[in-house]
């Protein structure tokens, strides 16, 4: 939780920063290195369970100040898919 990316939140977060934050958040839960998370790999293959996925979505909502379908990670189970879903809700900073 020491990255500069996570110090920022809300609409001034860029796509890259958001990707970094998401990977760090998910990696923390799975007790693995963020670098080991492939953005195109379903997160369930790393052991992210269904119930915790709902919590991650709520964390994203609070971090970015937007509202998402709670089951968005069930439908879009990769980091890149999740980013697309978030981008559909609001434009990211350049």
């Amino acid at each position: 939780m020491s990255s500069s990316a996570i110090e920022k939140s809300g609409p001034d977060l860029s796509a890259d920063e958001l990707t970094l934050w998401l990977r760090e958040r998910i990696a923390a839960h799975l007790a693995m290195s963020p670098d080991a998370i492939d953005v195109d790999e379903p997160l369930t293959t790393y052991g992210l369970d269904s119930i915790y996925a709902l919590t991650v979505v709520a964390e994203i909502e609070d971090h970015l100040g937007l509202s998402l379908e709670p089951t968005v990670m069930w439908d879009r189970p990769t980091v890149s898919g999740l980013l697309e879903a978030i981008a559909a809700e609001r434009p990211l900073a350049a």
Partner: protein
Amino acid sequence: MTSPTTTSAATALPHRADAVEQHLGDPRDPANPLGFRQILAADERAEMFADGERALDAYGLGAEFVPPEYGGRLTRLDELVEIMRSVYRRDPCLGLGYGASSFIAAVNIWTAGSEEQRRHVAGLLLDHRKVSVAYHELAHGNDMIGTEFEAMPGPGGLVLNGRKEVVTNLQRSDAVVMFARTDRGPGSRSHSQLLVDKDRIPAGRMRYLPRFASSGMRGVQLGGIEFHDCPLPADSVVGRPGHGLETALKCFQITRTTLVAMFQGMLDTGLRTTLRHLSTRTLYGRPATELPEVRSVLAGVHADLLLCDAFATVGTRALHLLPAETPLYAQAVKYFISRVLMDAMHRLSTLLGAHFYIREGEHAIFQKLLRDIQPAGFGHAARAACQMSLLPQLPLLARRSWPGVEPAPADLFRLDADLPPVPFDRLTVTAGGRESLSSSLAAGLDAAPELATAHPVIAKVGAHLRDDLRRLTAECATLPPVELSVAAGSASYDLTHRYVNVLVGAACVELWRHNRDHPDPFLADPAWLAAVLARIPLHPGVQPPRLPHDLDRRLYGELIERYESATSLGLVRRRLAEPHPKEK
């Protein structure tokens, strides 16, 4: 599938439950063909109680599980619970094996099924048929994602392969709601419910496994089923393919809450039976009920029953009124009430001594109920599984709800407030850490400052729970993610216990505060509130202390009065079928 009308509590609540009571008659009357003697005989044979099933057919219990749009009487879940308590207090095998298992199956259909599936299941239940619900595989328990039973695309629809085990009524049901893997890939969209109509299964593709014998609920027929390359029409899928986990998590809110609430009927009979035994027994030269220790245990158990009823009442009303929050409350209700009920039955057994152990005679129903109540702890979700579902919500709760939000509305607590129809279409998979009941604790205590002086224990427990919510808010905000998963340590599980206590305390305080004008003076008296708060297990793993002396006397007096007037022991008194014991 909601209709715009509401149902009046005043006309509906006591009515049908009383009808069931009278229909089934005095369970202790040896001449009653539906009494304990016959119930116990069936249990000894490990059979369902056939005369009891016929009596429930005659009453039309199946209609209680069907919404009115489909010809049934399921308008209010609190009514359903009260009706089912009358069944459970006599024979839990009838409660589960005749009733609740079909109800669980049906809730899947009302929540996600097609119009045709709804009409089909409604028709079966109105026709006194059984629908079983096959989620369980012995290898996976509550780990639903691990489900191996599969329904994969094949010629003409789906092809079933695999087995389900320890499922109520599997062999005698006309249809089965099954939880199946419909995608071999990992993830949360790989499962679906199927409504399997046994008439549509071709010969030779399905077989039943031998019945599973059980130590409690011995009459309930626990079966298994195995499919081998069995074709099934594609329209058997319930709801959107792949959305099975979502449907399950929605349905469980209704069924986990109401089933454990129904179990309270067992403690009513357990307490009544123990009191009956002790009041006729002379020990050390005086009636056993004159021993202070005996009275104290009995009073404490009555308080426990009221405590369960209070939380169940609020949890059940919340299903109608606050469906966005019940993903949290349902886990809390199931976790909390199951433990209190089982512990209370155990304490009663210590009063009965040898009489709880023998399987014959006047009090033999107790040993059956003591065995039958055990599934409260593991059936339809283990207590630990409820804690695991609450755990990842804790940091969200600490951020989104616990600092204080608008408290829960008064109608959640007012027993005479109408309830809208069961909102099957508004159930949601997660509360996202948003709930209002915990904020009702401080709001309720602050709005009734007289409580603090009425009984010291109210001030003490109230302050403890308020402080604990503040501590939880700080502790949970910084919980590391690894503590939110199955790998969490026991200290993290204890956090869920403490949180549930806050919800319980809030439910009790607000129930008292919003029913001070209730016609029953007992409900208006803060003594019941003091007694139930005193029985909340504030410290995980530690039994709550005895009631203070004045509450001991008050609760024991209430128990005796209810016993002698043959009224039920919960918050709302209901006339039971037993005759007035003093008139006998």
